[in-house]
């Protein structure tokens, strides 16, 4: 073997080893910038959570998509009310929102929402106290508890249960710029979790999926499929016919438009193949039936089926042009309605 040949073989092997090595390092999270989030908020999400959601609010709020959406959808007064009452501007002060769900068992706490941003803690506390909140401390963290309800009205157990809450609502100042919101039991459990270091990052099964979906997405939710079906109140007959899906994940990237992926992880390869075959077959049949219908073809072409052994993915996209069309329709309706009244028939 000549030197030239030997060098070629070594160079070739080196490229493969370096490439795969880079991927493995990224897989272990050792390459900064390759993950969409850091894990500081996750330290407060209990390890036995069944679902986890994340939204990069700052990016989404400043996206072109959001600006166009705002033209289409009417804005509520709720945002302004919150801004006036507790001094939090939802659009500009919040960077990231993370939510952890610990299933439907209220004794475990149902959900905790962690909000990272720029907050005036003193103003929030003052305003909350004016609205009937009680200040207390739990493991060195300040908690605002609405134990007596707004205006001094005691919330009944029925109210809390109906709202799916395990205890009265609480806001906790966890760290500078990090708030926790949720039922009392959930927020206290979040504080316990951080102290005991038994957070969601120790849940390897869920985190594997989280690491898969969060690259490149600025909003995602990952959870056990049974939790989704429980909350969806599907009939038992439908549940029985659902394929053996263990986890479901939805990730979205919001920028000029909205694109994302729905990912289902099944119990075994066969279930994934069956599910993929159903989805692919439906899309292929849809394309054949769509024929010359340009709109149907565009919609179907925006859907891409993929997946590995136990996972099935469906990519989707809502281009900004769709919002332009919606915007035009909305404008047309707004301007068209009075004209129709005046127009004699």
């Amino acid at each position, binding site marked *: *073997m*000549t030197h*030239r*040949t030997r060098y*070629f*073989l070594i*160079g*070739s*092997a080196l*490229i*493969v080893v*370096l*490439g*795969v090595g*880079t*991927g*493995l390092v*990224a*897989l*272990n*999270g050792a*390459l900064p910038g*390759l*993950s969409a989030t850091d894990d500081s908020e996750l330290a407060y999400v209990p390890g036995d959570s069944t679902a986890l959601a994340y939204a990069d609010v700052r990016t989404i709020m400043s996206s072109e998509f959001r600006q166009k959406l705002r033209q289409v959808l009417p804005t509520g007064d709720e945002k302004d009310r919150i801004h006036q009452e507790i001094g939090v501007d939802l659009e500009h002060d919040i960077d990231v929102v993370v939510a952890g769900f610990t299933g439907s068992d209220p004794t475990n706490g149902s959900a905790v929402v962690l909000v990272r941003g720029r907050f005036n803690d003193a103003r929030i506390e003052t305003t909350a106290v004016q609205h009937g909140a009680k200040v207390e401390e739990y493991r060195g963290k300040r908690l605002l508890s609405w134990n007596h309800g707004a205006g001094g009205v005691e919330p009944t157990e029925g109210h809390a249960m109906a709202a799916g809450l395990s205890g009265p609502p609480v806001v906790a100042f966890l760290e500078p710029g990090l708030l926790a919101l949720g039922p009392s039991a959930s927020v206290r459990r979040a504080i316990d979790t951080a102290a005991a270091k038994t957070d969601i990052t120790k849940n390897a099964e869920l985190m594997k999926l989280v*690491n*898969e*979906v*969060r*690259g*490149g997405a600025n909003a995602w939710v990952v959870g056990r499929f049974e939790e989704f079906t429980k909350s969806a109140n599907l009939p038992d007959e439908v549940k029985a016919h659902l394929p053996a899906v263990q986890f479901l994940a939805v990730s979205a*990237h919001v*920028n*000029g*438009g909205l*694109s*994302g*992926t729905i990912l289902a992880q099944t119990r075994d390869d*066969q279930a994934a*193949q069956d599910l993929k*075959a159903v989805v*692919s077959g439906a*899309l*292929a*049949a849809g*394309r*054949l039936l769509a024929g010359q219908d340009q709109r149907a073809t565009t919609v179907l072409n*925006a859907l*891409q*089926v*993929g*997946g*590995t*052994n136990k996972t099935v*993915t469906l*990519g*989707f*996209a809502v*281009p*900004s*042009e769709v919002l332009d069309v919606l915007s035009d329709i909305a404008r047309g309706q707004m301007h068209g309605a009075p004209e129709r009244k005046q127009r004699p028939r």
Partner: protein
Amino acid sequence: MTNAPRSAPGFLYAALRVFDLSLGDMLWSRRTVFMALVVGMPVLIAFVARSLVALGAPIMQNTAMTGPLIFGLMIWAFFVRFSVPVLGVFYGTSLMADEVEDKTITYLFTRPIPRGAVLVGKYLAYLVCTVCVVLPAVVIIWLLIVPLKGSLGASVIDLAKDLGVLALGLAVYGAVFALIGAALKRPLLVGLIFVFGWETLAMVLPGNLKRFTVAYYLQGLVPHAMPSDSPLSLMQQIFQDTPGLAQSLISMAIIEVVCLWLAARTVARREYVLEQ
């Protein structure tokens, strides 16, 4: 000084000696230029796409396509369906045909080594040569494309599977076409008809015909979704019947061993007549 007769080398040693001799010739031949073109095209496309994104071109906006999805489509379109079978045809059919054409097969056959070892050694050289060109190209494409709205970490397992599948595909297609090259007079034409005629047709027809192709088992191992970029792909998806992992691996191993053994046997028994 003694003149003790030297024993003939064993099959494996002989095959490795032929491999050592053939690898350099194969790697620095004109055929490698063709291979570089076939494999270099997707690398160039990936580089252009990445450069455009880096320069701010909005090619990844308003689309459901992510880097990993694009990478999956490239693996299907450029490698699984094209490069691997084509390289298998061009290299596999020429393993013995080149020696016959150049009239150098006599020199190999007059050496005290088993004839079958010549084919096996040249087959190993083909495998190393193609794997060393194709796999780095795939890794470069992966590094360029996957970070576009995707994560390297999340798709490294798929990359490892892709590399394994492509290496296996090159090995099996190479063995099949080595047999065709050893047994038939016009192996290149037969090989091209096999890849672009028989395999394409059998894969879209319902029934069990597809089980007599390599593509059926190879495509069953690809970790990415099959693209629906043509009517044939759509038909293939409708009649999709994907073999399991074990079935694919066992079937490909059987095809590989049987074809290589038959090819070596054919070379050992066939009488090559050199045209004057």
